[in-house]
Every structure is written in C-alpha cells, then in structure tokens.
C-alpha cells in the first residue's frame, strides 16, 4: 500500500505537486491519471525518495522508501526505460542491481526470461528498441520480486504490440496480488488497464475512485434512440416524462434522439407501448475524456480528433499511441489531451 499525505513539490516558481493525499491499495492496478505536466512523474520520484518533498510525505507499507532495507525486494519501479548505460549489456545492468540487493545471479536470468530478452541479454542496451528498453526496465523492476510496483507512462511511444504486452503484464502482476501503480496521460489506456484511479491535474488531486465510478459519475446516463418517426418518438418520450434532444446525422449515423436520465429499458418500453418501430436503441457511455472535463472544469485543456491531424507539438509518439487499438469496441475516440500548451512543452523538454 502506498499512502501519500499532503505531498507537495515546488521547483523554483513551479508548483509541480500541490498538497496531494491519496492511497494506493494492494492487489489492484491503480491508474495515476493526469495530463502532461500534471505532476505524475514528480510524485513518483518523491514516492521513491529521489526527489525531496517540499512538504508532506509518502509511505510504502508504512515506511519511507529511504528506510527500506534492500528496497528492490519491496518495491520495483520503472520510471524511465532510458536509465541504463547505453554501453552496458542488459545482463550487466541487471547484475549490478541484483548484487546491490543481495539477489542471486540466477534471478537475473529468470527476469530476462520473463520479459523475453534472454537472446539479446549480452548486447549493449544502447542498441535496444524502445520496446526492448521498456522490457529491460520491467526486468529490473521485477528483479527483487517486489510486492509494490510503480510504472511511469510505460506504454508511451510503444507500438500496439508493445502496448498490448505491457497491458497484459500489468494485469498479470495485479493478479499475482501485487500493488501496481501505473501512470498515464491517456484516459483510454487507463480504462483498459486500471481498476482504480488517482486523477490529478496541475499537481492537485481531482478524484480518487474506481475507474467505473469515475466514468459513471461524470457521464450520467443517456440513451440514443432512432426510428422512422422521430417526431412521434419525441412526443412519446415527453409524455413519459423524459427529455429528448435531437442529434443531427453524422458520419457515425443518421439523425437520432438522445434521451437523458433514462435507461434503454425505459425508453424501449415507452416506445413499445406506443407501437413505434425502432431502428436503434443504445446506451451512451461517456468517455473518460468527457468524464475528466466534467470533473476538472477548466483545470485542463482537452483536445479531440484525429491524432494525426492534431498532434501535440513535440510529442508525435504520444499522439500515435494506444487509442484505437483494434478489438476495443466502444472505446473513447482517438484523443489526446494536454495541459496548457506551455506546460506540455515544458514536460516534453525534460
């Protein structure tokens, strides 16, 4: 379990993390969600004792990270896959980590096997692809078989195959009963990966809740309904005490009604009693993006659309990332959200 209490970090005039209090429960995947520059990485560095909090504190299973003896046996972290000397082999990198925490050498071979790097273990890490580096980082995090694991934007810049691999890996780790805390700026990714969410914007806590509750709370319930006689349908809904709005025809479908505050059961029964033919009746689930906007108000700026057409300056790899992975029907539209542009640029430049 991770408990942050009033965690605050100031860099000069930037308040990167602002009075953050949250807990991460054991045995689940908890998503750490927020736009670029929200303070996710800073928070993770403070959890791990790398950055010193300006105020507040954070404990892992009741202890400060710096008080852990042989910390790799308790906590595994992948903050940046690039934290490897490029001229050192994967095996040598894992070996010094293992020695530092008195882990047996055979554990190095085990984790290399777990992440599928056995064949390239003696090659210099600088020649690895991003996906391979990420696997090496995960191998390092797994080395001490820790109960608590932290991952900072693990899917950033990966190809769909790599993303799927990481996602499945997270689930496996949580299924094994570990505490998994994984950050992302991609809401759609978190919806697939995390059971719980800690949501931050501009360094402040916005919500701590289950992923499902986060979506439900923010999106409300509405039903899309369509038939040949839209005008009569509207009247029937009104007489049933339901408010219905018209939505014009779009690329996704012809003109229809959206009924607010109702279930598909209620709408279907009303229409059936009136003897109306329906061509479409579907619950509309709000996307996490919509949920986020609703909960944060003006805290972040949100953009949606074709990521290829609306890339965030300097972050093309992010824009091309996991949204729209095949086989994920009903997922949020391809989308990308950013903090204020200046904040996004600053975060990228790091």
């Amino acid at each position, binding site marked *: 379990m991770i408990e942050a209490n009033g965690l605050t970090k100031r860099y000069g005039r930037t308040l990167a993390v602002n009075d953050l209090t949250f807990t991460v429960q054991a045995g689940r995947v908890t998503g750490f969600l927020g736009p670029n520059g929200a303070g996710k990485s800073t928070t993770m560095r403070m959890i791990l004792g790398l950055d010193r909090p300006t105020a507040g504190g954070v404990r892992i299973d009741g202890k400060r990270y710096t008080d852990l003896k042989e910390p790799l046996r308790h906590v595994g972290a992948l903050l940046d896959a690039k934290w*490897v*000397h490029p001229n050192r082999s994967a095996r040598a990198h894992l070996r010094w980590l293992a020695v530092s925490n008195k882990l047996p050498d055979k554990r190095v071979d085990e984790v290399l096997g777990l992440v599928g790097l056995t064949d390239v273990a003696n090659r210099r890490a600088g020649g690895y692809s991003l996906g391979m580096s990420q696997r090496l980082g995960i191998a390092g995090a797994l080395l001490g078989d820790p109960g608590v694991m932290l991952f900072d934007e693990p899917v950033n810049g990966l190809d769909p195959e790599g993303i799927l691999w990481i996602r499945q890996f997270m689930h496996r780790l949580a299924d094994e009963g570990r505490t998994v805390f994984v950050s992302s700026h991609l809401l759609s990714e978190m919806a697939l990966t995390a059971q719980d969410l800690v949501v931050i914007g501009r360094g402040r806590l916005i919500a701590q809740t289950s992923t499902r509750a986060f979506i439900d709370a923010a999106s409300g319930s509405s039903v899309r309904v369509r038939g040949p006689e839209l005008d009569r349908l509207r009247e029937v809904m009104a007489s049933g005490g339901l408010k219905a709005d018209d939505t014009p025809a779009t690329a996704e479908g012809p003109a229809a009604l959206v009924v607010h505050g109702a279930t598909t059961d209620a709408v279907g029964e009303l229409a059936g009693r009136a003897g109306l033919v329906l061509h479409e009746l579907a619950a509309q689930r709000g996307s996490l993006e919509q949920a986020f906007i609703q909960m944060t108000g003006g805290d972040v700026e949100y953009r949606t659309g074709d990521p290829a057409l609306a890339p965030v300056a300097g972050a093309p790899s992010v824009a091309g990332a996991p949204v729209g992975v095949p086989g994920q029907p009903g997922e949020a539209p391809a989308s990308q959200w950013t903090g204020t542009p200046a904040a996004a640029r600053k975060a990228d430049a790091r």
Partner: protein
Amino acid sequence: MTALTLLKVERIKLFSTRSPWWCMGAAVFITVGFTALLAATIRPGDLGDLTPATTQFSYNFGFLIMMVMAILAITTEYRFGTIRATFLAVPNRVDALLAKTAVVALLAGLVGEAAGVGAWALSKAIRPEAPLALDNAQDYRVVVGVGLVYMVAAVVAVSIGLLIRHSAGAITALLIWVLVAENLLPAIPRVGDTIQKWLPFTVGNNFLYAGQQVGQDNDATPTNMPFGAWGSLLYFAVVALALLALAVGLAKRRDA
C-alpha cells in the same frame, strides 16, 4: 548493505563499460611512452640527469586522464540516469557515493603505480648505464609514491563531477583548476608566491619532488613549501576529503 557489497556493485558498474579500460590503457601508455621517448633520445652527455625523479616528469599526463575518467564515472551516471537507478537500489546515497569514490580512487592509484613503476623500469631497460638505481627513500617516494597522488587526485575529480554533474562542465572546471589556476595564480605580484604554496595540486606534487631536482637546474617544486613530503600529501588528502564531504553532503540533499 555492507561496504563490500557496495564496492562490488561499483566495480561491476565501472568495468561493464569500455571507457574506463581505454582511459586506464591510455594513461599508462602515454605516461610510460613519453618517459621512454626521453630515455631513448637523451644525449649521452646528459645521461647523468636521467634519475628516478626524471622518469616521473610525465606523470601529469596519466594523472589528468585518470582524473577525467573519475569525473566521467560520476557524470555519466547523471547523464544516463543510472544514478537514479543506483539510489533506488541503494537509498543510502552517502554509502553509495563513498563506495564509488573508493573504487575509482583505488583504480586510479593502481594505474598511477603501473605508470610510475613502468616509466622507471622501461627507462632502466633502455639506459642501463643511467643513474636510475633506487638508492634512498626519496627515490622510492618519487617512483612508487606517484600512485598515491593519482589516488587523491581521483577523489578531487569525483567530487568535482558530483558537484557539477555534467561531463563537459566538470572537465572544464578541472582543467581550469589544474592547468590554468595553479599555473597563473603564482604570477600575481607580491601575493602570488604565498598563494602558490597552498595550491592543492602544487602541494600534492611536492610530495613527490620535495628536495629533488629534475633535469639540469629547474626546480620541480617551489622552494620553502610549508610542509615536507608526507605533510604535503596529507594536506592534499585533507583538501580532497573536504571537497568530497561537501559534494556528497550536497548530493544527499539535492534531488537526484
């Protein structure tokens, strides 16, 4: 985590990349090579000047290379983020950094020893007729003691790397200190001579050359130094350790 474990970790880290090997090879090769060149080309009439002290005249080459290696040992960790990986594995930063310093200093000491003894031995092989026998404590000190100067210098270099954290900046600072400041400050009118006697590398050099002459008549070390040979080494070491304490103390408090 025991000291032995941490020393082993730093040893693995240092030797699992290639550049330390290159630095060590270059330090020995260049230092010994220059001395050999001198021994081979010295005119028969000047053979009397080829003393044990003279064989060490080029130790500055290897010593600078090893200081650069010591700086890189720490600044590349910052550059590639492995310092963070280190602090994750060993949250006691003081212990981790002291272990690194010890490994680097020990290595520099061994290289200094190899370069010093190598330069003397090769000269003796090339010019058996030269007065190269190690006759007294002074002769031994200048040939065998050079490793100690390398060792202390490596501690200074690690500290500079730890304070500045960037390879280029740290190496520049080192070169300005060793090659510029310690050579130009003594040129300041009136106070220059006094300042010179307290400059750390000048004093460190005095450990080797106190009371010695190199070549014909040029003094290898200023006259009227405040300390004798061993006192000079002690002073140099105290300066190095003070700098190290400052650097490690800061690294403990700063964000990694």
